[in-house]
């Protein structure tokens, strides 16, 4: 039973076909890594799934429901969360406030009117512990280090508790230890959450990947285990030939 299905998805900006007839299918609880050279359409694919960009062709089916026409907030309510490439935390809000914003189980205006600041407990305490930000609870997010900001955004996605989470380069700017720990979290989330991870760090990919999808020029180039993909000549040509030799 597919949890998320992309059918012949395509979008073009002006003359450029950013994504072109992409088919993709994910099972519930699966972690999928999306690889490909820059400009291959990986981030655009995530944009299409979360609704930031509307496709010019094809359909997005989530939980057997066609969500192609839904707006981003509606998709978020369906259970799709997204982490952006450049950390998009709210810099003027404290860590705690960022997490409160992310906890969006009741996203309506009226229901939000009745909610006042609550104590740090339950899920929030857990998440803070996990990303080691407990001590920074009242720090303004803008004053966090780069790595901490990435963690905070991951924490926000955990607070949001979506069933499908899209990660765009989650480990950019992290130290080796942080990256390793992130991999641990991802592995723990497998099974209960479906995840799509766009990542360049092959070491990280190796730590977490089950199935890997490689894209190039907006289309699917190869799919399979990491070993399969690495030995695929087309992949080597398009991707690994460029940046792969320094990984």
């Amino acid at each position, binding site marked *: 039973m597919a949890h998320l299905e992309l059918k012949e998805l395509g979008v073009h900006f002006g003359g450029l076909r950013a994504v072109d007839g992409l088919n993709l299918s994910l099972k519930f609880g699966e972690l999928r890594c999306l690889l490909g050279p*820059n400009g291959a359409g990986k981030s655009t694919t995530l944009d299409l799934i979360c609704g930031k960009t509307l496709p010019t062709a094809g359909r997005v089916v989530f939980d057997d429901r066609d969500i192609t026409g839904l707006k981003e907030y509606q998709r978020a309510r369906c259970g799709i969360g997204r982490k952006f490439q450049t950390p998009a935390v709210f810099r003027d809000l404290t860590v705690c406030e960022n997490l409160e914003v992310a906890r969006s189980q009741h996203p309506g205006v009226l229901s939000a009117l009745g909610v006042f600041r609550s104590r740090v407990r339950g899920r929030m305490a857990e998440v803070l512990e996990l990303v080691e930000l407990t001590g920074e609870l009242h720090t303004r997010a803008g004053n966090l280090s780069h790595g901490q900001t990435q963690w905070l955004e991951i924490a926000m996605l955990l607070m949001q508790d979506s069933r499908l989470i899209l990660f765009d380069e989650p*480990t950019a700017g992290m130290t080796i230890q942080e990256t390793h720990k992130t991999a641990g979290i991802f592995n723990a989330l497998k099974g209960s959450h479906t995840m799509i991870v766009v990542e360049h760090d092959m*070491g990280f990919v190796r730590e977490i990947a089950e199935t890997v999808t490689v894209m190039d020029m907006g289309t699917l180039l190869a799919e399979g285990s990491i070993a399969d993909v690495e030995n695929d000549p087309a992949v080597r040509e398009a991707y690994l*030939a460029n*940046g792969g030799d*320094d*990984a």
Partner: protein
Amino acid sequence: MLEAQALYSYYGKSPIVQDVSFTVPEGSFVSVLGRNGVGKTTLLRTVMGLTDGISGRLSFRGEDLGRLPTHERARRGIGYIPQGREVIPRFSVRENIVMGTYTRRDGRRDLPGHILELFPVLREFLDRRGGDLSGGQQQQLAIARALAMDPRVLLLDEPTEGIQPNIVHEIEQVLLRLNREFGITVVLVDQNIPFARRASDHFIVLDKGRVAVAGHGEELTDEVAERYLTF
């Protein structure tokens, strides 16, 4: 020719580059390496005067750069090719290149012929808008624009990022030619270790805003790469 001593550079109050010292000899090819977010880009921007403030000493051909505004630094012959190319999207290719000549002291505003020789593809597109070019072409345009100012040193920030492999190769060849044939000093920020190894006279590896290792090109060993550059 370009020298830094105990250089700190700030965004707001936080120092991004800390206690960095290096020397770039005239005519050399220097690679600056390091993981994402360690301050490589900031280092180049510091040289151009695009950060909020510095302390320590930064000099170019014996002249203190610290107090000079950015456009004066450009006039001293420092050509900067930023990350993401940043060609002017609504300018034609010609206008983009001519823009480089605004720093020239001789007041000439014509398209230097050797530039179009280096990048034949630009000759075809002279009247197209910069924003309509492909990534690789934009990168070539960005280099051409910097060359139009007749620079003494080129600062390049990840010129091969996100560019097709065949064009990457072309660009690398051009950089080598510029350095070897035209005698232009090159400071290159890049992730591509094999090329850095091949091309560089010197290399600097940054980590958390500080110089982790520095040395001659051949000293860029696998061990160094493993330690500071892989993930």
